[in-house]
């Protein structure tokens, strides 16, 4: 009898092996998850009526789309937070940090007059921009990846962001890092002012690109 019990238990254990292998693949080794992006509906009128600065945050890595409201200003940077505490911190149009959207980006430091931070108009961008990305690593010092980006201005076009049509110029940045990492950023700048309306920015080697749609711009005087 006891052999039957043990044999049954063994069979149960073995039947879990394949499932476990798949779990290991999915959880330990982090393949690109096959996730579906869920984009929330944005109630523009409610945001405008409440006079809130807001952005739509999309993280394809984990298939999350959520709306963040400006909740804090720290050192000139605006922190947008969602109901589930996912957040991005924007310095001008540069994604300075992220939380709850994958692996997290701790900070980005940049050269003086980074046109993404100053929100310079397309055509006024310097030929090269150097930025340093800071990520959690071992110990108390963040790991760094230094990137250099060149840019190219595209033609003027209309884009629809949360039911509003914006007149924009696209700037495509082609970036290279020391570690052989290469990526593109795409920024859609207001054709008149240079302020950012939509941006798809790299935020790390695992988290990849995150898209920010500015639903309602932050107005420091509001």
């Amino acid at each position, binding site marked *: 009898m*006891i052999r039957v019990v*043990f*044999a049954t*238990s*063994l069979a*149960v*254990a*073995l039947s*879990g*092996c394949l499932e*476990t*292998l*798949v*779990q*290991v*693949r*999915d*959880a*330990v*080794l*982090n*393949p690109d*998850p096959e*996730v579906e992006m869920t984009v929330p509906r944005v109630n523009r009128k409610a945001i405008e009526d409440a006079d809130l600065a807001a952005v739509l945050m999309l993280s394809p*890595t*984990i298939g999350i789309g959520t709306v963040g409201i400006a*909740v*804090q200003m*720290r050192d000139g*940077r605006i*922190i947008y*937070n969602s109901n*589930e*505490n*996912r*957040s991005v*911190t924007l310095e001008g149009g540069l994604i300075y*940090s992220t*939380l*709850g*959207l*994958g*692996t*997290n980006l*701790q*900070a980005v*430091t940049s050269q003086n007059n980074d046109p993404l931070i100053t929100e310079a108009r397309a055509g006024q961008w310097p030929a090269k921009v150097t930025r340093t990305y*800071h*990520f*959690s*690593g*071992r*110990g*108390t*010092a*963040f*790991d760094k990846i230094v990137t250099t980006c060149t840019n190219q201005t595209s033609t003027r076009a209309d884009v629809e962001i949360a039911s509003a049509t914006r007149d924009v110029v696209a700037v495509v940045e082609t970036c290279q890092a020391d570690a052989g990492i290469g990526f593109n950023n795409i920024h859609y700048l207001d054709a008149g002012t240079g302020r950012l309306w939509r941006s798809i920015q790299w935020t*790390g080697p*695992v*988290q990849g690109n995150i898209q920010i749609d500015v639903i309602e711009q932050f107005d420091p005087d509001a």
Partner: protein
Amino acid sequence: MIPKTRAFFCALLLSSSLSSGVIAEGVGGLSQAIDTPRSADSPADELSIALDYREDYRALAFTFQPSDRFEIGISFPTYDDGSGSSSGNELSFGLRLLDESRYGPGLSVGIVGFGSDDRGSGEYVLASKTIGAVQASIGLGWGRYAQNGTDARGDDDGVVRTDHLFSGDTESFANIVWNTGVSGLVAAAEYSGRAGPEADETLAASLSYRILDGFSISGLVNNQGSAGIRLQFDANPARPFVQPHITRGPYPYIENRPSAANRPQPDAQQVLTVLQERLEKENIQINRFAMTGNAIDMTVYSRTDAVYARVIGRVARVLSAVAPANITTFRITQNTGAFDSNVIVLDRAGLDNAVGRVDAAALAWDSTSFEASPMTRATGLIEPAFKPRLTYGLSPVFKADFITSDTLEFTGTLNANARYSFSPQTFVSGTVGYRFLNQWTQTAPPAEPQPRSDFTAYEPDKAYLESLSVRHRFRLAPELYSRVSAGLFERAYGGISGEVLWRDPEQNFALGLEATYVQKRAYDDWFGFEDADATTLIGSIYANIGQNGNFVIVDAGQHLAGDFAVGLTVGRNYSNGWRIAASTGWSEDRNSALKFGAELAIPLSWTSVEGGNSATELSVGGQSGDFGSRISGTGLLYDELRRSDKRRIEDGFGEFWN
């Protein structure tokens, strides 16, 4: 318990049923093309477990790269020559001396089977060059890379043998490895001047296929009539970890601005209510809460997050928003179950200054200090509550057995465990086991019971009482931890054991002393004893050294055979719960080469979508002889306390704000 223990053993178990060809030498634990070495080319912290399976040869090998140019291998080969079998135990090192330049090759050197001139030991120097997806190597080898594996290399009888290194016959070798980029296929071919049974030179080819990310299988064949299969698992504990099931981010940190003092301040109960509500969403449990003077004192615990630095960071975020303005210090107590092991003191003003900065984690660490938990405290709003409880479960254990088998057979044991906890400090537990896979053949008990080598005299093929013991842990002083245990500790021994451990949370080392008196358990029944006893007295130093979670454990004292022996364990802890270690030992009564063991712990948060902060553990080798052996199952205190080491908290502090 089944899902918690099966993960990596499953792959090893499944691999044991593969068929193969005839004799060849194989894995030495270092990077290699097929049977010849090549330069390590993986990033730092990469580790792999490989099983080589051929009809007359099997090997299990661990490889670990502490840095991108240095690799360590521990392998356990067994050879079957037809007339009998033999097994090895190899510690190997590979070092890339020179990196490849644009036109120049890299230069590497390696020693396989350090300290031994047994079969399988060998040395090499090689030059390698990578062009695109192809790595080519050419080199010169000694020992296993030059001569027939059955020939002895030397007659040095020392415990650590060195006379044979880089001496004797040499043969050249060359290999090429091509990562095709197609479906994880990697092709390799190699030449070796080493003669074999069917040709004066050896040519070999292999093809590897990635079954899943991290798991690959290789088929290999050579012109000496040998063929085989190799199964390999690769992982990197330092790799960033996306949490695909993440449901929320951390709460925003709110600085304690002067204007906050002008607002109505919450009382302790209001603070606690908000804390409980918010931390529950983070899967963080509050076991104790007190708000006195300018400090909030909490004991917190997460069942899902193994990185305690991140846990206290999330607590600090919530506290920043709800704590009254006069609170300047957050005191977070870490509890291991039996002990309050640390009080981690966070300076609120320091955190205010750190948040959002480009060096936010370093600044937060500068605002952190450690204290021993006091023996008594003022009563808080809530205090730890404990109800006596019974827990139980089944856990299958698969492992490569070197004690009852000399051909690296995989054994499977099903354990039925039960534990009744009277308090967080005291419990009685027992395990009944049954080995369902590869039983050993019972031998006649020796005239005199032996410490370990008579294990096969125990009756196989039926359920047995592995252990039944009671354990009580307590503190003698804030920095002095203690334990007493009694009962049947393991299959072969029962008795009483006591331990004292000194540990200052601010220090990076601890000192322990364990005294144990045991009687040899009966070979044929659950509760009887043989007429043999032993006393062990072993002192231990546990030290965290350098950066990156590196640690050293030195054990010294009187062991089971009455011999004075020293054990050495070196390894690396990762803040996310991974742990890799290698061990060896020396005994005054043992004149054979050192034996090496390896252990690997992989956190459940990486092997199960449910997460958790316990780990799947895999160990190979270690104590198996009569000398340098100690009692297991007594419950060494440091195993419970090491997660609280300051250096481990520091190692995870990059996650403080995550």
